[in-house]
């Protein structure tokens, strides 16, 4: 038995996507269940933990708390859209090098929050970095290496990368 679906279109990682969705579906479900982009993850279902963070028109959002229909016609960037032809984004590289990830479940969301921050503020202080991550919970790392990774990526990015 099939429930009512409606067509929407949006740009995901630079590609225009046309897909039929249920009005009740969130952006998170659209990405995971319809487009198989599993980097956005369900963590809390209450707009808190940030495992589902993606970028919507250039700013970070919790995709569990956006209806797919609210993303109609807008630009979405997910973790899958960061590496360019096999070349990791400096943030991704820094997270690996600095050991800023352990179980890795929250990492995509945190990297996207960091990307949103750096696109606005290229050289943030540690305090600013931490403030920008309050919508992202990590249970493994204690955040120390996450902050270090973001700081070193900031330097790299200013050095011209991307």
């Amino acid at each position: 038995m099939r429930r009512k679906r409606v067509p929407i279109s949006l740009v995901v990682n630079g590609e225009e996507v046309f897909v039929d969705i249920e009005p009740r579906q969130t952006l998170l479900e659209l990405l995971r269940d319809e487009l198989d982009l599993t980097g956005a993850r369900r963590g809390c279902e209450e707009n808190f933990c940030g495992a589902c963070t993606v970028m919507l028109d250039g700013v970070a959002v919790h995709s569990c708390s956006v209806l797919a229909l609210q993303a109609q016609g807008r630009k979405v960037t997910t973790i899958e859209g960061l590496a360019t032809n096999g070349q990791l984004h400096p943030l991704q590289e820094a997270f690996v090098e600095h050991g800023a990830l352990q179980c890795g479940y929250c990492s995509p969301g945190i990297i996207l929050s960091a990307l949103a921050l750096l696109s606005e503020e290229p050289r943030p202080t540690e305090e600013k970095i931490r403030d920008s991550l309050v919508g992202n919970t990590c249970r493994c790392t204690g955040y120390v290496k996450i902050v270090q990774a973001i700081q070193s990526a900031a330097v790299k990015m200013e050095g011209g990368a991307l």
Partner: protein
Amino acid sequence: MIEELEYLEPASAEEAAALLAEYGDESKIIAGGQTLIPMLWQRLVTPRYLISIKGIEGLGTIEKDRQGSLLIGACATHQSLEKSPAVREGWPLLAETLQKVAAPQIRNLGTLAGDLCHSDYGADPPASLLVLEARCRIVGPDGDRWLPVDNFFLELYGTALAPDEVLAQIEVPAVPDGAATAYVKYCLRAMDPAIVGVAVMLSMKDGRCQDARIALNGASPVPYRARLAEEALKGWPLNEAHVDEASRLAQEQAEPMSDSHASAEYRSRMISVFVKRALRAAEERARI
């Protein structure tokens, strides 16, 4: 797990109100959705119709009118306000307050009007809007009405909005010349609601308090202006005795709730602590 629903996109606030009138309990207004969608996930509310006002022309705007008041459309997000040069310059209290709302992800989509309509006692903006003596433009089937924010919050999670009314716009009058403001929030994690949030506006002259406005959220099921406390300060220097008296009066006015973040007793005690701190913070700024 969100239940099946229909997503409606009216072209005007009036249309939205008409849809509310038509579908009643079965419908809910959605703007940023930052409070509503988590409730849909938990199936606490299961509206058959979601009425999105996001697409309505003009509801997203932030502008200054001729009287120098700030007009905030119902769909203006925390982030757009917090970053607006006009707001930062003319209503620093608002900018200061909105920076303390939850997380960037939520501020990027959440709306100020949404905060008011949900009327969560721990939400940050109400105290500051009370202090700024903002007014709400409410659109219903029989046209518009204006309501002071002071009369907007009625009970726990309950507002003065009729079932078929839409909050369309918030008007914030210009801040009196020379008035200093501060919003102090007490919570244990940035993501948490305020255990106590205190907004203060102070006008000082020759070391004496000419005018004081104090409002609180978190402290009571409904955000409130601490008018007795305000009166206790007017005409006096902000010495310890008067500040203590004011904070005591603000505390007495509250009917604190217990919740996971604080017991009623603790909350009550924090009211006086943070009213003092907010007054001192504003006083500092008044000096400059």
